[in-house]
């Protein structure tokens, strides 16, 4: 059930994320060069590209974790000044992004504490979120006692706990099996539909990009820049079986595959 307003009206308002000629260099090495990009409210933009092309770096810039070397970033209309609480980030290296001294519940609770949610409410919220990511009953496990996929889902739950207006996700479903992944994809679409959140979604799974996105952006490496900006006009709500079998889906997938194939040189 897609309750979002149609894309066109959304686009009319100011972009939620706006990169204006971003350049980013580590020392002498330019990682991202002259990147401009606008993401409208409620839009889901998937980013693909060969390994090491700068996807994570672009996401970190969008999250305010690193300032661009040149150019400006505007977030929700304001110039970027560091990370914000209404912008949630799912890190690629989930194994490092969880507090090893807190249980699953404790890690999710951290976001609630940051938002000032009363202690009495937290328990229910945490149980809800754990159920959403398919980990009901695992609240008392420490990260070291969880499998890779479980850790990744805890991180996702923590981000959802932030009730974010913007979701920056770096290969969030990378460690999940097909079914769990599909479940979470739909879960995410539902949440976005409900809350109108804007999503910047890095993935290396082309089907995932097409299935989720309103737009798929392909980055080219050395230095990172936009190589393709593909609108995905598949109707919503989408369906894991039907959508993936439509000719349009297969065509888009093929387009992106060709892009990646060329980008690899």
């Amino acid at each position, binding site marked *: 059930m897609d309750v979002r307003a149609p894309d066109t009206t959304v686009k009319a308002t100011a972009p939620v994320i706006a990169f204006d000629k971003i350049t980013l260099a580590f020392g002498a090495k330019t990682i991202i060069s002259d990147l401009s990009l606008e993401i409208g409210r409620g839009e889901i933009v998937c980013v693909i590209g060969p390994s090491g092309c700068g996807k994570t770096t672009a996401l970190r810039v969008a*999250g*305010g*974790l690193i300032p661009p070397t040149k150019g400006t970033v505007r977030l929700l209309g304001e110039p970027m000044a*560091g*990370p*914000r*609480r209404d*912008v*949630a*980030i799912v*890190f690629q*290296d989930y194994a*490092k*992004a969880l*507090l*090893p*001294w*807190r249980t699953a519940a404790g890690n999710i609770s*951290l*976001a609630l*504490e*940051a*938002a000032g949610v009363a202690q009495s409410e937290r328990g229910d919220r945490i149980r809800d979120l754990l159920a959403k990511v398919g980990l009901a009953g695992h609240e008392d496990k*420490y990260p*070291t*006692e969880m499998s890779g996929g479980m850790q990744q889902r805890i991180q996702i739950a923590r981000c959802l706990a*932030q009730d974010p207006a913007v979701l920056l996700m770096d290969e969030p479903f990378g460690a999940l099996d097909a079914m769990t992944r599909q479940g979470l994809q739909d879960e995410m679409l539902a949440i976005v539909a409900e809350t109108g959140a804007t999503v910047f979604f890095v993935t290396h799974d082309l089907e995932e990009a097409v299935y989720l996105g309103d737009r798929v952006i392909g980055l080219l490496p050395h230095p990172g820049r936009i190589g393709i900006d593909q609108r995905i006009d598949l109707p919503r709500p989408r369906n894991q079986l039907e959508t993936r079998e439509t000719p349009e889906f297969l065509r888009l997938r093929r387009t992106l595959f060709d892009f990646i194939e060329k980008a690899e040189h």
Partner: protein
Amino acid sequence: MRLSRLGRLLASFAVAALLVWGWQLIADYKLVSPVFLPGPDRAWGALVKGFSTGDLGVKLLATVERMFWGWLIASLIGIALGAAIGTSPRLRAYLAPMLEFLRPLPASAMIPVAIAVLGLSNGMVLAVIAFGALWPVLLATIHGFSAVEPRLYEVGRALGLSRASVIWKIALPSASPDILAGMRLGLTVALILSVVCEMIAGRDGLGNWILLAARSFRAPDLYAGVILLGMLGYITAVALAVLEARLLVWRNRAR
């Protein structure tokens, strides 16, 4: 599980007993002059006598109290200061040179100055103990803070945690193994300095007892004092280890 723990503890005590037995042998065969190294039997005798007829108990208590408060003050200041320095590069730039200068000052050599400034009071003694025991805690805390996985600081920023929350919820727990190791050392230093203070500043306590025994060449009494120190050290170490085991459950479950 329980039983094997108990077994290990017993084995550990057995090793200690073995060493005591070695000590007895050294004393029996007079490998070291008995004037300076009486056997454990004589030391134990002196210990029992000290408790039953003397005021060894009172002295022990005085030392424990001194050590504990000095250590507590040192730990609190060390953690607070370490947290401040560890999270603020500016503060670090300001304070580091002065701290690095103060650190190698021998606490024992400070005593005359401390007496001149603070008088021959318990406050002076506590200040000296705290001064000495501060460094292990401070250094370990600063290090612990700098060793926090950078990704976790980013998590804190992304969640919009306040600076206090970042310290309290991310940096402190992450640094807690370091801090606890520092506090362990600090406790030892506090005990040593309590004894030294009692020796140099003439406060009543185990140090005083040891000093007087050493001065009047009553070796068994001296060793009675040393044995007490050893026991005291062991008991406090066990107490800290229990605390540590509680605080660091997460680390023991790592695979």
